[in-house]
């Protein structure tokens, strides 16, 4: 339980406001000094956030979300998505996220890709190419979320190949390793929507201990990106800790008035690089994951 006045959903709402105000930067087809790949990644992450926001009455009815989804539906008409789906293996997950989210909001256009996606899943290499384990979990999660048939191994089996399943030595972890830990927990728990039933209470306890220690480390490092992910990961385990309270207090204190959360690389930007595009580049992910953490911590409706 968080103390009164500490409301994760308020962090999420402010983050959503910033996202709404910076929507144009998520357009991968707009002219920009930011790489197109980064914008595609940002768009896919935004759309996944919208899918999670849809689960909560108090978020899905936000006027900002209506605008965001209208923007996403407009982008969906671009021929790029269908073409990429047929040409590149790594396009599947972003296109799946897009399709699942648009369907969840009832915004499926005539350009319905469901059948094409299902054919690709069945007949192409997308499910059998080699991916790191948490990416395989990600694929399984979004296929399930979108209601697509597939022959991927069970969550338990995919989990057993992850870093976290092997009780890693925390002293050796890189930031990328910690991202793989948080993401593995997101996918196996469907972002805290279901309990991880193949783990024993003792295993959950050990994992929670690792997650809370890492949360402390990233609070110390003022890395709000991983701190927010680890807060969400705690909730995916169905646990909270005294560090969660501290984490939420600091996230609330750190969030800018316009809803932006400063990313870990912001301080590396030179003064002459602090234009709107670079600020977006440095902060969009941290703002998105803060919203995600707020959503995961909010009671589902």
């Amino acid at each position, binding site marked *: 339980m968080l103390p009164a006045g500490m409301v994760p959903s308020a962090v999420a709402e402010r983050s959503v406001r910033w996202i709404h105000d910076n929507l144009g930067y998520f357009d991968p087809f707009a002219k920009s000094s930011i790489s197109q790949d980064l914008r595609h990644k940002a768009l896919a992450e935004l759309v996944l956030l919208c899918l999670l926001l849809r689960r909560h009455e108090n978020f899905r009815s936000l006027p900002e979300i209506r605008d965001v989804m209208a923007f996403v539906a407009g982008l969906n008409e671009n021929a790029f998505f269908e073409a990429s789906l047929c040409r590149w293996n790594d396009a599947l997950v972003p296109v799946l996220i897009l399709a699942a989210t648009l369907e969840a909001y009832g915004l499926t256009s005539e350009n319905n890709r469901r059948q094409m996606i299902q054919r690709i899943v069945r007949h192409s290499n997308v499910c059998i190419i080699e991916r790191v384990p948490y990416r395989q979990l990600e694929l399984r999660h979004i296929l399930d979320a979108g209601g697509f048939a597939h022959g991927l191994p069970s969550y338990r089996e995919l989990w057993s190949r992850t870093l976290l399943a092997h009780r890693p030595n*925390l002293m050796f972890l890189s930031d990328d390793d910690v991202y793989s830990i948080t993401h593995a927990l997101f996918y196996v728990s469907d972002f805290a929507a279901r309990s991880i039933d193949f783990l024993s209470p003792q295993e959950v306890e050990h994992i929670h201990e690792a997650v809370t220690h*890492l949360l*402390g*480390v990233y609070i*110390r490092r003022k890395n709000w990106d991983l701190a927010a992910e680890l807060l969400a990961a705690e909730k995916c385990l169905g646990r909270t800790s005294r560090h969660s309270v501290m984490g939420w207090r600091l996230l609330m204190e750190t969030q800018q008035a316009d809803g932006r959360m400063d990313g870990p690389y912001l301080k590396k930007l030179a003064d002459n690089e602090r234009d709107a595009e670079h600020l977006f580049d440095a902060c969009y992910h941290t703002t998105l994951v803060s919203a995600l953490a707020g959503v995961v911590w909010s009671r589902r409706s």
Partner: protein
Amino acid sequence: MQNGEIGRSLHAAETWLRGLSVVLRQRNFSERSLQCLLGLWICERALDQTRRDGPRELAAIISKQLAPLQEAAISSFDSKLLLLALYIVRKCGYPAHALESYGRKVAGAFRQYAATHDDHVGERIVLARLGLSNYPCNIAVDPSVTHAAAHDVLRGDLEAIRNLYARICAATHFGTQECRWFRGRGQIAFVIRVLLIDALNSYDLATGAMLLRLAAYLGPANEAVIRDAQSFLRLQQLSDGRFGQYDLHAEALRDAGLDASLDLYLPLTVSCVWALAESAIPGFRLFSLSSLQL
């Protein structure tokens, strides 16, 4: 982690320290000799308390090197290190007049005060073992090590960590006593483990070793983070026994006028053997009566 692995690690470090003591014999007396002596003492006491040969040779050399020196020549050295060195040299059966004089002076200064500040608990304990002072019961421990203060340290700098270190060492008499009066002790132990992960993950081995000892003082000793930290430190041990993968910086150290063995590897190796011994060997504490007796 098995004590056997820690034992092999301490043996290797002891071998390296012995080699270094041969180098130190050729040099003028310095604080480095005392650090090496302490490292050898820790290895011997942690590995096999019946042995007598560990630091004896170096103690004899230090005794000889100290003979012409006055107390003033050593007064700028770390006071705990000086008193521990006095203890070790004395126990090895050699005279050390400058150290004796220093010990008496410090003991006299402490007698002026009913209580001792947090920072001087180590000195008071060793003085008591030396018979120069009573065992320190009236340590004025700052009671403000609370949940909130621990959280402040979590976001604090190295100085804040050192202050916490001093307070916990005082409260636990360097891990030889239960610390009963800390409120939120579990939370403090948690914060120390977080700081430990952060330090070792950032490859700050010296701070990590210090925090590993603190984590062991507050327990529990079999905690996963403590085992991971021991494993991490052992993996930083080179085949010759010293700790720290810094050889790739050797040129930069030379350019800065530093002797890598003495100025970098020696203090780090002593810190690491101290931390490994206290965190892994049941009952071993440098400042306990059994460790300070032959």
